């Protein structure tokens, strides 16, 4: 039976960074991922990673931009840590081989990004996430003696001992269907967000909220769940992402009349205001009839010199050509706001510890909270790496003073029985894909850029119904080898749990802040709502709601304009 000091679930940037940190600190480490690590969705992060590394820049400036971007819902102690540690993290990445693009002097080059007062985004063309993810994986191959990799193993359950401590997980080897208990002194969840609960989304098909739901089910609190980021530039038809780097390099947003409408919404920062601001502006244009008939506005990348586009924005040249039939170097491309990121997640402290002893979380699965109501572009890669590393180091240190816990023996048989039951389901229920589709379109209809009480309640009702239908959904595959049907059935349950968490929090917050805009409560209300909403499991009932304070260190809330 695999037994490690630290078990990491998920092998995107947060997970791989945690593994390298824990392994480097001398812990025995296993990293488990339902896909090959480099398929993790961090690979799709395009634009870059923020750090105040330039001589003119300061971590305070980065932190203030982040606090303001969060609409003052971010915890300032955690934001300070992230921004202080950012420069060293960039240098670490540079030293292990990330091929950051350079300035003319050969120093690290930067590009501008939304909501930032300085150009402090370090980048590799527009494949920054891919470049960092692949380089971290190079390091995992290099340090294979320190870190055991379990690639294409799907986690079904987190394990708790009699004291309520998290002591490992049960995972299914996708290749043969075998279930395995993984013992561990600590478990770090790094399994990403839940974009697939929305349709469309920029997120990959694997992004199904597994870790958020697994933690929730064993009693971990979720925080800021109502804060769902809609990215301003996604393709109308399929929701694919056009990087903010395009606007960072100089592209403009235009409405159907060719008007640079951001002048009316953010006269100073224009196209590079915070994402929530830009997305709302676009949606307003579209709703008020100034968009194109296909419900979009235009992104004009022809403003960027062609040579620069080919060198630094090649991925979106490909995406425009392959998925929209548009040569972005020659004509504007139609875009609209699309679901992109979850600011919320499993509530942690700045070492990644959750309220369940032994359970850590880092990256999009977690909520520290450094993003608060709205994440700045190029802060998510930073979040994954800083808090992945901190969780890895902390978990390694924790392991030193403790014996290997023993896992409850009966649990494996329970999970086995549950999976056998799924595989043996009689056909005739709704199809998994149909339920998932209804979930996604419901969330996108009622819980998007603009929300109100009636819509959210309607959505909640639908989700409750889907939760009843899901356990009876039809299964076609009765086999053990790469049975993707059974995985989809389990993931559907995860997404429904996460969706309900989002809806409960969104109904609770009766104000507009960051990504949550309530048309029935259009103003920010610091007196009543400058606080986090925590949701936690409540048997099979609607999750329990609690509140926790926002940590404010040096930046008092102000009016937020760009």
């Amino acid at each position, binding site marked *: 039976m695999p037994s490690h000091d630290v078990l990491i679930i998920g092998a995107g940037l947060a997970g791989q960074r945690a593994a390298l940190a824990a392994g480097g600190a001398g812990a025995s480490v296993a990293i488990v991922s339902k*896909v*090959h690590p*480099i*398929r*993790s*969705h961090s*690979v*799709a992060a395009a634009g870059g990673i923020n750090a105040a590394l330039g001589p003119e820049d300061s971590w305070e400036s980065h932190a203030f931009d982040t606090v303001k971007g969060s609409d003052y819902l971010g915890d300032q102690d955690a934001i300070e840590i992230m921004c202080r540690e950012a420069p060293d993290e960039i*240098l670490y990445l*540079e*030293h*292990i*081989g990330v*091929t*950051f*693009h*350079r300035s003319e002097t*050969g*120093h*690290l*080059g930067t590009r501008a990004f939304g909501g930032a007062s300085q150009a402090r985004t370090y980048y*590799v*063309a527009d*494949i920054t996430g*891919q*470049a960092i993810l692949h*380089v971290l994986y*190079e390091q995992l*191959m*290099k340090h294979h003696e320190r870190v055991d990799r379990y*690639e294409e193993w799907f986690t079904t359950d987190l394990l708790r001992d009699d004291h309520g401590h998290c002591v490992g997980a049960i995972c299914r080897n996708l*290749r043969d269907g075998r279930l395995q208990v993984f013992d561990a002194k600590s478990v770090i969840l790094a399994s990403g967000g839940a974009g697939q609960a929305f349709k469309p989304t920029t997120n*990959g*098909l*694997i992004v199904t909220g597994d870790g958020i739901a697994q933690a929730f089910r064993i009693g971990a609190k979720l925080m800021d769940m109502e804060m769902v980021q809609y990215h301003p530039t996604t393709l109308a038809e*399929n929701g*694919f*992402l056009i990087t903010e780097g395009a606007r960072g390099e100089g592209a403009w947003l235009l409405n159907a009349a060719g008007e640079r409408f951001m002048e009316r919404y953010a006269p100073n920062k224009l196209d590079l205001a915070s994402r929530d601001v830009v997305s709302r502006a676009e949606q307003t244009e579209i709703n008020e009839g100034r968009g194109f008939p296909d419900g979009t506005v235009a992104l004009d990348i022809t403003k960027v010199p*062609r040579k620069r586009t*080919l*060198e630094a924005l*090649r*991925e979106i*040249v*490909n995406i425009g050509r*392959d998925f929209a039939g548009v040569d972005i*170097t020659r004509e504007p491309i139609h875009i609209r706001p699309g679901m992109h990121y979850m600011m919320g997640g499993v509530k942690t402290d700045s070492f990644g510890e959750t309220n369940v002893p032994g359970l850590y979380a880092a990256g999009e699965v977690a909520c520290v909270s450094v993003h608060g109501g709205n994440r700045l572009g190029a802060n998510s890669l930073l979040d994954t790496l800083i808090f992945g590393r901190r969780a890895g180091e902390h978990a390694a240190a924790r392991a030193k003073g403790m014996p290997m816990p023993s896992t409850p023996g009966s649990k494996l048989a329970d999970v086995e029985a549950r999976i056998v039951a799924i595989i043996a389901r009689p056909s005739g229920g709704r*199809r*998994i*894909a*149909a339920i998932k589709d209804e979930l996604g379109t419901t969330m996108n209809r009622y819980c998007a850029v603009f929300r109100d009480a009636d819509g959210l309640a309607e959505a909640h009702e639908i989700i409750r119904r889907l939760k009843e239908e899901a356990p009876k959904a039809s*299964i*076609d*595959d*009765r*086999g053990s*080898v790469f*049975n*993707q049907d059974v995985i*989809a059935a389990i993931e559907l349950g995860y997404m429904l749990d996460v969706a309900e968490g989002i809806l409960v929090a969104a109904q609770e917050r009766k104000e507009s802040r960051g990504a949550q805009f309530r048309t029935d409560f259009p103003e920010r209300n610091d007196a009543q709502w400058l606080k986090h909403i925590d949701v936690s499991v409540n048997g099979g009932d609607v999750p329990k709601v609690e509140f926790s304070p926002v940590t404010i260190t040096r930046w008092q809330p102000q009016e937020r304009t760009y």
Partner: protein
Amino acid sequence: MPDYTLRIRRYNPESGEAAYWEDHTVQMKSHSSVLEAILEVKAKQDGSIGIRCSCRAAICGSCGVRINGKPGLACNTHLQTAAARGAEGTPITVEPMGNMPVIRDLIVDMDAVHWKKIRRVTPWLINKEPIPEREYIVPHENMVDVTQSMACIQCGACVSDCLSMEVDPGFIGPAALAKAYRFVGDPRDAEHYERLKDLSEDEHGIYDCTHCFNCIDACPKGVAPMSQIMRLRRVAGSDFEIEDRNNGHRHERAFVKNIKRNGLLHEADLLPDSYGGKLHPRAVPELMQSLPTVMKAVARGKVTPAKALLHEHKAPPEVKQIFKTIEARPKREELNLYVSGYEDAEDNLDVAHVPHTDEPTPLAPTYPVPEPPTESESE
């Protein structure tokens, strides 16, 4: 929306049955991807079809398959493009990639082949010492240059159709060698020479590639693995002067010399030149060894002593001009689409290479096309 029929290769090791084809018809938009069509089949008809996929946008590299015989990503192959590869009205075949064992349906064992080969090339940076306190100061151009191989998403499409690997499964192969270039082209790496020496000396290394271009056609990301292999050869042979024991570098030089002199390949010279010239001690045993083949060729009239010894064809001025132009360049120019952009015809930033496009490039020859080689001169 038109109907599309997918003919999917199914295989389930648990069934005890051999692989078989299964047809599914779906209504899709013609610019939808093959992956979308497969997902539609999975959603509405049969959830048991196995295919790895995630991002749907050609970034994660999961959905490498063969579509109507051509390797690539299911997510960025349009149905109409795929259909156009086959005869009208025939189904679009979707099958697992080649050169790798099939686990189930469209899912292949990449670890057994692809990743094993990646691990072969010491796939991590070996830092130049001392490691600076801040970043390494390196030219922007170098970082843009290696971005082309960093752009590899490890989908395996190139491995799938690598002809050399089909013949020699030990060949390190296009993806791993492109990965190797990512370090050889990185000025922060301390062991360029050691890496190149290793990959030159390995009989399955850089000289095992036969220039078939399959990997360049297969790659959905424009990495052009074969170009990266050729660059490894140039750096190994020309910059580091690594004379490998496979005679790879000498053989390449012999080719160039041969063409420069003759304009056509003259095999009677090629062999001895590859070993350093007719009189080189290294060449003598090789020439002796090849005598039976030569005798056979003479006996069957494939070659005459006169043809073998006398060069009847001389390089025309146009060929000489090509050599002159290239050799007069102050530095070697490399194909790199991150620098040049391959859609460009008019402003391709002075990089004098043939741009790679999906369509055959209409290049008007500026010199007379030589007669096709006679049989005795062709390979």
